[in-house]
């Protein structure tokens, strides 16, 4: 087997085309920025024939040029992804083979975008996202990793080799290296080369997405539950409660995050059981949240309330006990048949929730302080509604815009935090394929071999960037109302 090149036979035509287009695009962008400083602000001006005035002159040309050059570059990039799908194995090089591996993801993405664009007027805020270019790019990047994690996690589809198996002779080998005869795997190459333990970097990178996609949103949801349950009363009642809670929140925020991680996520601390107690404390908030939410709405109809609340709280309670109950820690009282799952990285999960919750608390508190003076709150008070009903069913829905935007940003921030934990080797095993740990592994030999550290770094960057762009698009669209 020969080693794969980056672009294979496709490169002979597409590479020069891409190079020319990118350099032209760069020139056009620079020209546009430089000219933009001298040009007067553009105002809409309609011509007698009913058309609108476009900007003329050099700047106008630069602007049109940027637009078309960008579209042409995009077309070439898409060609790199699409053409290999119909070429036989090995012809289209590493990029082509990677594109083939991601085929289920492409299909799902296209289906999702087509369906969402068709029905976008009926889908509320989510549908409006498809009016904003930035939001669409961000959503595309995020969903790319969500689908990747889905297909890898449930069907083992995209990976090419086992992410833990070491193949002798492939240590630190460059991308596209052929594996020895008889090695198990879907294809006979390491697409992105081997790491310093001779494992397939491509498979490790895509497996790492499962870890991030599974943990980051969940941890953010828990942080939001804690922040909302405490922030609403703090902002609504004010007074002593607010002072105490705000002081505690500021206390946690004044801690440098890395110091906190180093203090919390060590084997010695896990031995004392502090993370388990913290989990027991922090994870009870979803129970409180849903309990109060349903009770405040339905307490006037006890029969209906019981019918809804008992199953909801029962399932949540069972999940709660299964999460905090773990073999080998201080909280271990459930019989085995009742314990649904064991989370081996509970301590990572807890510390990420713990770090995020105070910021959410501050945001919710600030929003509540603002919203509690509104007329609809006064109206609800006049109707005689309870305080919790007003907080959860009047104020919270009206605060959803900023909270949804912050939720997207916070998932990105949580991803960065998880990466930081991995980067310092805290709480995760060194075998773990998550992006932070692989970057940490790769950086040790970075000056000699760059290829092990770059794929996880780019993957993490693209996911966080996607979440940031998505948040930006959502903010823009929700402000238009």
């Amino acid at each position, binding site marked *: 087997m020969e080693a794969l090149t980056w672009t294979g036979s496709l490169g002979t035509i597409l590479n020069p085309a891409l190079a020319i287009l990118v350099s032209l695009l760069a020139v056009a962008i620079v020209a546009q920025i430089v000219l933009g400083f001298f040009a007067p602000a553009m105002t809409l001006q309609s011509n007698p024939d009913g058309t609108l005035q476009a900007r003329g002159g050099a700047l106008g040309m630069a602007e049109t040029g940027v637009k078309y050059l960008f579209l042409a570059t995009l077309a070439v990039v898409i060609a790199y992804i699409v053409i290999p799908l119909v070429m036989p194995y090995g012809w289209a090089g590493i990029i082509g083979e990677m594109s083939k591996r991601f085929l289920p993801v492409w299909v799902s993405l296209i289906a999702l975008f087509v369906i969402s664009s068709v029905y976008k007027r009926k889908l509320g805020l989510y549908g409006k996202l498809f009016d904003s270019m930035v939001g669409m790019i961000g959503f595309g990047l995020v969903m790319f990793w969500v689908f990747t994690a889905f297909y890898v996690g449930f069907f083992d589809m995209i990976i090419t080799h086992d992410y833990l198996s070491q193949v002798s002779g492939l240590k630190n080998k460059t991308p596209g290296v052929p594996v020895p005869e008889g090695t198990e795997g879907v294809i006979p190459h390491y697409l992105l080369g081997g790491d310093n333990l001779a494992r397939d970097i491509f498979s490790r990178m895509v497996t790492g997405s499962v870890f991030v996609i599974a943990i980051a949103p969940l941890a953010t949801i828990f942080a939001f539950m804690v922040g909302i349950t405490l922030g609403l009363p703090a902002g609504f009642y004010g007074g002593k409660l607010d002072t105490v809670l705000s*002081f505690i929140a500021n*206390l946690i925020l004044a801690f*440098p995050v*890395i*110091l906190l991680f180093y203090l919390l996520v060590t084997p*010695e*601390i896990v031995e004392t059981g502090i993370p388990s107690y913290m989990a027991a404390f922090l994870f009870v908030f979803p129970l409180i949240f849903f309990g109060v939410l349903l009770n405040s709405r339905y307490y006037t109809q006890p029969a209906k309330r019981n019918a809804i609340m008992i199953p909801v709280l029962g399932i949540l309670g069972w999940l709660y006990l299964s999460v905090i109950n773990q073999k080998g820690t201080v909280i271990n009282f459930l019989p085995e048949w009742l314990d649904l799952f064991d989370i081996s990285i509970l301590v990572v999960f807890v510390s990420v929730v713990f770090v995020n919750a105070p910021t959410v608390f501050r945001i919710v508190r600030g929003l509540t302080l603002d919203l509690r003076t509104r007329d609809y709150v006064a109206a609800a008070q006049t109707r005689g509604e309870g305080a919790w009903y007003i907080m959860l069913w009047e104020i919270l829905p009206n605060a959803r815009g900023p909270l949804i935007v912050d939720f997207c940003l916070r998932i990105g921030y949580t991803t960065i935090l998880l990466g930081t934990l991995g980067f310092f080797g805290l709480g995760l095993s060194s075998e773990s394929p998550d992006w932070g740990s692989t970057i940490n592994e790769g*950086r040790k030999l970075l000056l000699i071999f760059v290829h092990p550290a770059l794929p996880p*770094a780019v993957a993490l960057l693209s996911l966080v*960037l996607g979440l940031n762009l998505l948040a930006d698009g959502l903010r823009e669209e929700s402000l238009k109302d």
Partner: protein
Amino acid sequence: MGLFILRRLGIMILTALCLTFIVFWLTNLTPNLEKLAKTQGNARMSDEAVVSWLDNRGYSQALPVKYGQWLGVLPGYVIEGADGEVRARCQEPGQPLEDASTFCGILQGDWGFSTVFKEDVSGIVATRLGLTGKLMFWVMMVMVPGALIIGVLAGMREGSRTDRSLSTVSIISTATPEYVSGVILIAALATKAFIDWDTIPFKGTATSAMDDATFENFFLPVITIALYGMGYIARMTRASMTEVMTAQYIRTARLKGVSFPKIVLKHALRNALIAPFTVIMLQFPWLLNGVVIVETLFNYKGFGWVLVQAAGNNDIELLLGVSIVSVFVVLITQLISDIGYVFLNPRIRIS
């Protein structure tokens, strides 16, 4: 104003006490102490030997007592150990017991002794802080002007193409944590992986920058930290600038016929920079994070590197010293940002 500062100072001291107590409690948990005994004494000590080792050195006292001694408000212990030797907290090596002072804690300026570096904590913290100070100075020199220029340019014409492209740049920079941008920058600029340099322009480590910082060995760590903070400050500046540009007095100036550059520089800029000032101050805690990552990545042995060493080896007194400094950095910057906000904003200053 005076009362305001006093109240803030009071809260600050209370916060600092709470935080150091938490760090003290977490580092003094039994498993941590046992580990300390085994690394300091003998790795194969029996359980009784561990207990007596801890007893002899005052580690088995009650937590508030230990904390008080460390702080310097309670007299240091004098313990006659099971092995007959008398040890005192305040005894210097080689000093007779009678000459030892009664109180020795942070308040007396005695920061303790690092078990990893075998040096006084105050000395280690001072030298390492100096090195990090050098790094931070250059980060600020790059980050603040860069961020303000990007933010002002983007914010002066909201919705223009310049605005959109610069905003995208700042979103990208906030989405790139230091360990990602550092790795990418090293790969691109300090190795021959992407560009076949004749001579590689930058160094991938900053160890030599500790003695002699040059553009070659110091640029990458500085730009790595600066990039992450830059985007955030730029976005805040942009938001504040767009708000100012829609204000009445700017419209008046435009109607009077003042030229656009003059409006931006003379009328808008001053008011637009109030909000970014507080944001820049509040960036310090985040920068501290970046410093730890970058110093580890570039092997620059500054304050962040010491934090990792102290925490990784459970060097209790060094870790406490490091946390005090970092907590105070955070709290003081918060204080300055509050005072500065009041000071810069005439509407609040007068009321």
